[in-house]
């Protein structure tokens, strides 16, 4: 069981900044995120896009913002459970919560801060009959163990970086790799596009474009796929062991919607007059996932919400203590790792 003071669900910019504000109050944080890396949408959807409304940054790339936040919170040694989705919550007798992920990892904390943005990112599934029947029986939406595909006939569908990169990688592992995409053009790093071109020329990747998968065949497990060329409607029947559709990820509110929280317009209602607490005391919702009158889904609003939420969390954890807010310019930043940042002392010396 992982124990912490504030359990943050969602490692996007709001969740990450929460670690800093909590750290100033000497509260420890642990973050859960369904994605394999921290940063949320900023890292997953638009790392290379500039953001212009972060106070003090005339322009910052979303990916850089995440790097900066990770740097800023490093002294407070946050824990991470990445690549796992928070599935269930349970309240214990002592008033603390246990949050369990889809992989069974358990986390215990007196405070839960949901900073889940739009929800957890789930793979987008193509619309095909039988698709769910073959899940884990030849169909997978992400590649966890590349060795599974050794000497297999693999068909990958998609036109982005992950479709290109995995086609390249599996070309050396699988016995056959077929890449199917609805257009002739791919959206990916130039290197990857060129590499696929090279492998295609060498006969190591069977490229079918513009085309789409229209049918899956098989009894107990997947054994074949029908691909239709979209330019001339020609149908190609292929023997295939594995089908990996890589159409990116889309966010879903998911299991959090069944935690008994008040939901409005796909977002969690919170008390914006005070501390962004939900209808369940001890559970807060901050950033894009919450809603209240006048809500704006902006990163800078998430930062503000995180700051006020941490003050409230402190009061819940230490009801008998009175906290006096200290400016970082005055108090500096003392990390849990023993590091100390502070303003250099002015020198008092007479000039003769």
């Amino acid at each position, binding site marked *: 069981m992982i124990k912490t003071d504030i359990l943050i669900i969602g490692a996007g910019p709001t969740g990450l900044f929460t670690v800093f504000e909590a750290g100033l109050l000497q509260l420890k944080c642990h973050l859960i995120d369904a994605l394999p890396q921290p940063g949320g949408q900023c890292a997953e*959807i638009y790392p290379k896009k500039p953001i212009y409304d972060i106070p003090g940054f005339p322009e910052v790339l979303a990916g850089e913002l995440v790097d900066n936040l990770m740097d800023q919170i490093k002294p407070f040694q946050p824990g991470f459970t990445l690549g796992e989705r928070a599935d269930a919550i349970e309240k214990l007798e002592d008033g603390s919560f246990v949050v369990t992920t889809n992989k069974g990892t358990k986390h215990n904390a007196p405070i839960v801060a949901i900073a889940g943005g739009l929800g957890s990112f789930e793979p987008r599934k193509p*619309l095909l009959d039988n698709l769910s029947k073959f899940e884990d029986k030849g169909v997978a939406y992400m590649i966890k163990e590349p060795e599974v595909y050794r000497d297999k006939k693999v068909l990958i569908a998609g*036109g982005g970086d992950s479709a290109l990169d995995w086609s390249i990688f599996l070309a050396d592992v699988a016995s056959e790799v077929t890449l199917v995409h609805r*257009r002739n053009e791919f*959206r990916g790093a130039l290197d990857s596009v060129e590499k696929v071109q090279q492998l295609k020329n060498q006969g190591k990747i069977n490229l079918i474009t513009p085309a789409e998968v229209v049918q899956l065949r098989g009894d107990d497990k997947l054994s074949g796929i029908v691909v239709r060329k979209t330019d001339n409607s020609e149908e190609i029947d292929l023997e295939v062991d594995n089908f990996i559709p890589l159409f990116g990820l889309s966010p879903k509110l998911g299991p959090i919607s069944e935690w008994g929280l008040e939901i409005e317009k*796909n977002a969690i209602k919170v008390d914006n007059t005070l501390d962004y607490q939900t209808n369940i005391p001890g559970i807060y919702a901050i950033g894009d996932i919450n809603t209240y009158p006048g809500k704006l889904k902006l990163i800078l609003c998430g930062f503000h919400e995180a700051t006020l939420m941490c003050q409230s969390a402190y009061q819940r954890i230490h009801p008998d203590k009175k906290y006096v807010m200290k400016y970082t310019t005055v108090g500096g930043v003392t990390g849990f790792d023993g590091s100390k940042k502070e303003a250099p002392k002015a020198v008092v010396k007479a000039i003769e």
Partner: protein
Amino acid sequence: MSDIKIKITDRDGVLHEVDAPTDMNMNLMEVVRTYELAPEGTIGICGGMAMCASCQCYVKSDHELPEKSDDEEAMLAEAFFVEDNSRLGCQIHISPELEGLEVELAPEEQ
């Protein structure tokens, strides 16, 4: 303030005729959200960067629309329920030439 009329059929097949301002730097996805013609969280998920297809719509009238950018082309190539007249609402800027535009929202992806 100058408005144009746009006809939008929502995902339940209900037709709405709405006023869309041409002087507020808005796009079609934002118009749909302003009038709440699709539930929040089901449209404009990426915020209007042509990085999701939640604002996909079918253009029913024969207005001349701006050409698709590479990003929009690429996104539509990976979206579902795509037809020849599919566009991403976030990439359609509301301008006076679009007076009388008729669109239908594509189904929500599951």
